[in-house]
């Protein structure tokens, strides 16, 4: 059975101009279907504004779709009872792309990472504290960071705080919304290795929302390309990646070069490789 699936989802937002005089619905997702099986690593690719993040928000139950259904273990999410909702929140965790916006600026790192452990896992006091320390170590932060406030940490450190918080309740599916793209490369690699180890040991699935094809090739088994609110391509991740849709090809061409090109100083013309 699929862990989480979206069936024919359509969703939009009310656009208002100025003081709200003219209002028309802006369709963000149109007839999108996507299923994630246990232990699967699915990449959701697309340019900014294509609807990837909206789809992620709908999948974790932060919003309900205008039409269509999100199903958790075969049950429609909008009809889950309180216990079902709690199981959804424990099983599906999400890491957002803007870490400063995803944490309480007045809470310490320890409080941020520990917050879900009480209500979702029943961990309190010293048990919760030990768990938080282990989580901080798992994301390469130090135990000294426990008492720090978000503004005392760099963007990359704060992103790892958010990753630690998501790992806390031992989720079965983690939705990563550009969650590693603002980390340094060696930290990106370390986080991906950590995710991969959790997948192998505990069968954790991932929905990896990104526009960076380099990471997809490394980490994902299946990929979905979105453009303008629709899924335009779905395939297994082959090596090397061969994308067929125009949107997929445009993303592939925007991948940055591995090596600098030899060039005379102050040369004219594009310094990026040909093909754009």
């Amino acid at each position, binding site marked *: 059975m699929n862990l989480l699936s979206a069936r024919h989802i359509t969703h939009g937002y009310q656009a208002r101009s100025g003081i709200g005089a003219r209002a028309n619905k802006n369709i963000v997702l149109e007839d999108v279907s996507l299923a994630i099986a246990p232990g699967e690593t699915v990449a959701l690719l697309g340019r900014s504004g294509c609807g990837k993040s909206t789809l992620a928000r709908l999948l974790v139950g932060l919003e309900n779709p205008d039409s269509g259904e999100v199903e958790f273990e075969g049950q429609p999410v909008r009809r889950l009872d309180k216990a079902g909702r709690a199981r959804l929140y424990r099983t599906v965790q999400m890491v957002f792309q803007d870490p400063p916006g995803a944490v309480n600026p007045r809470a310490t790192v320890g409080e941020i990472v520990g917050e879900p452990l009480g209500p979702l896992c029943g961990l309190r006091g010293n048990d919760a504290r030990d768990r938080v320390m282990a989580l901080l170590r798992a994301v390469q932060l130090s135990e000294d960071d426990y008492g720090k406030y978000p503004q005392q940490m760099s963007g990359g450190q704060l992103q790892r705080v958010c990753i630690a918080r998501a790992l806390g309740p031992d989720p079965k599916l983690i939705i990563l919304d550009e969650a590693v793209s603002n980390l340094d490369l060696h930290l990106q690699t370390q986080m991906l290795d950590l995710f991969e180890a959790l997948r192998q040991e505990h069968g954790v699935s991932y929905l990896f929302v990104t526009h960076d094809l380099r990471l997809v090739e490394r980490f994902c088994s299946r990929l979905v390309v979105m453009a303008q609110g629709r899924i335009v391509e779905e395939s297994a991740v082959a090596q090397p990646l061969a994308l067929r849709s125009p949107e997929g090809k445009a993303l592939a061409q*925007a991948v*940055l070069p591995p090596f600098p090109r030899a060039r005379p100083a102050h040369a004219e013309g594009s310094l990026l490789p040909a093909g*754009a």
Partner: protein
Amino acid sequence: MKPLTLSIQNLSAYSERQGVRHSLLNDVSLDIRAGEVLALIGASGSGKSLTCSVSLGLLPPGVRRAGGSVAVDGQPQPPEPLRGRLVATIMQNPRSAFNPVRTMRQHAYETFRALSIPKPEWPSRIEQAMQEAGLDDAARVLDLHSFEMSGGMLQRMMIALALASEAPFLFADEPTTDLDLIVQREILELLDRLRTERGLGILLVTHDMGVVAAIADRVAVMDAGRILERGPVMEIFHHPRHSQTRRLVDAHLSLYRLDRAA
């Protein structure tokens, strides 16, 4: 006469917690030359962004400057006239750099007022800069607020404001990190063109060695508030001397399943 070199010399900064000094920047020296991109790379928390802000006299709360100076063509410069006049700045999240209740036109005119540029020049100056930054429909965009624009448009607007100030140097702190890859490529091509055509001297803070490979002329590597290594981009990629640099290059190449010998 356009200045040729902006030198950050022996910059040091620290924070104090419970009476204990924590060194944040230790003797950081960098030369940014006109017409060149100097990439400043290093692990998160190594002091890349802090180097930019402290050298411009912008100290985050609790941070103090312990020493160092900035000179333009050998002439020491206090921080205030540097900001906006000699050095324009663009940042990672352009949305947070704009006041949400002001239009783009109001932002541009505020900049011009601060720089004491004669009022009759304002409209043509911003429209020209926007054209150069790839915002073709200047008349329409100037009436927009930041929440009505995409991240790519906002970063172009930041670059337009930087160009309109005619500052000869640009500090770009992770300018493409929050943008999608296609927009990232367009912004890098724009910066590249401004370096060649305008002779802009750019200090580019980034964690992405792909960005470095695409656009940098020279590279400085930072760790724990110090500069570990500096050199031409080819040297850094093919013959990194410091273990930290090797780690950065190897991690980057592993994404492409390549190694340094390739």
